[in-house]
């Protein structure tokens, strides 16, 4: 089992969700986050005082999958979020030790999907 964490452009969320549904990945957690990467931040001006490099709005997806879904999930996120420019985001993959469904106590691979 793997936990896939993706940081993407907010306006790509719908496309990524659609691409994930197309490969039958339907369970995810989505949060608004702030961050900075190679893409420089906006400059904001308040009464003449400039603030450069403010953190940018991004969307984070947390998706837990079984091993055979890892590559299709990566492909779907990449397809939905890709524009080829700086700021498209990143995908992180970490090993997932356990997964428990709270409603019925199921564990492991069965609990993920």
């Amino acid at each position, binding site marked *: 089992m793997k936990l896939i964490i993706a940081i993407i452009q907010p306006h790509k969320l719908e496309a990524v969700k659609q691409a994930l549904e197309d490969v039958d990945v339907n369970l995810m957690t989505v949060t608004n986050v702030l961050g900075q990467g190679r893409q420089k931040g906006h400059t*904001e*001006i*308040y*009464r*003449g*005082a*400039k*603030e450069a490099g*403010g953190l940018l709005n991004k969307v984070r997806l947390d998706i837990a999958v079984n091993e055979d879904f890892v590559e299709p999930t990566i492909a779907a996120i990449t397809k939905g979020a890709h524009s080829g420019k700086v700021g498209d985001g990143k995908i992180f993959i970490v090993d997932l030790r356990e997964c428990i469904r709270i409603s019925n106590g199921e564990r492991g691979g069965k609990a993920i999907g």
Partner: protein
Amino acid sequence: MNSGDTAWVLTSTALVLLMTIPGLAFFYGGLVRRKNVLSILMQCFIILCVISLQWMLFGYSLAFGPSFHGIIGNLDWAGLNGVGVAPNPAYAATIPHSVFMIFQAMFAVITPALIIGAYAERVKFSAFLVFTLLWATFVYDPLAHWVWNTGGWLKALGGLDFAGGIVVHVSSGISALVLAIMLGKRIGYNHKPIRPHNLPFTVLGGALLWFGWFGFNAGSALAADGIAANAFVATHMATAAAGLTWALIEWWQNGSPTILGAVTGAVTGLVAVTPACGFVSPINAMFIGIMVATICYLAVAVIKAKLGYDDSLDAFGVHGVGGTVGTIATGIFAQKAVNAAGADGLLFGNVHQLLVQGLMVVVAVAFAVIMTWIIFKIVDAIVGMRVEENNEVVGLDLTQQSEAAYTVIE
């Protein structure tokens, strides 16, 4: 008595109340961080309660009561003794005396509320209360007496201040600067920019200020007459010109016109036209608007940054500087053709009026600086003006009031 006049001044009174809450409260409230928004709303709200009572008990009598040598009123009218339905012809012959009193009460309320912008996000609530009460009593009431009391010594010199450029804006603005310097900077100021937490609130509050200001300025005619009409139109045109001017300067200087700039500019226009609106023509009010937005932009965006004091919400940059510009501009643009009870200014051949206006500014600044310094020292020694460092970091909403404006989790 005249029912039209009475109706207009009563309506204007309610409009001026609207300037403090919710106008100023939201104008300032949007500019602070989310952890301090309730502290601003609370300060504006409680000032309305406290100063209204102070005004009834003794403030009105000090400011407008029978004069002791032009310096201060005696306490004959304390508790509104003798201030009833019968008009007081010395101030307004066609409306009940009590209507004049309650109209003036709203001015006494908003003036110390303007100062909140200077010590926002770091003042202790108890100290704020004591300071406000002392400041209203020892700065506002005497100054209102000097300029507006029929026996006041500045009025006797011929100083023109239609609706409170000196009494309201210069006094609060210069006191704000003294407080900002004495209180010191907010933690983190200069190291990281402090961003407004809700600019839509600020725009909403600024728009309500514009609306309420028609009562403040046109109501100051104390009658529903031609002077009120001129003050109304002049107020509007100065504000429109100032809002546009600030936005254009920003566009030219920084590449983008901002809504915060437009609304700030508009408020500078409202401030500057306040002393002038009953004495100047609408076209000259427009020039005042252009002038004040330019000068206040320099004060806020350039000079403040160079001098490095932390006037959190620019109470000095907008009200102190704007009030000064307006008071001086009144000495330039005033004309008897607009208001026979006024005077001609520099443009109409009367240098003397400009000098008197300048003298009023000097007197008001000197008096406000000295008194604010003294009151600060007293309150700081007894109560402590500034919150403890960890309270400032956590925020005033939680540490001074034990409440939070916004929930993140249900």
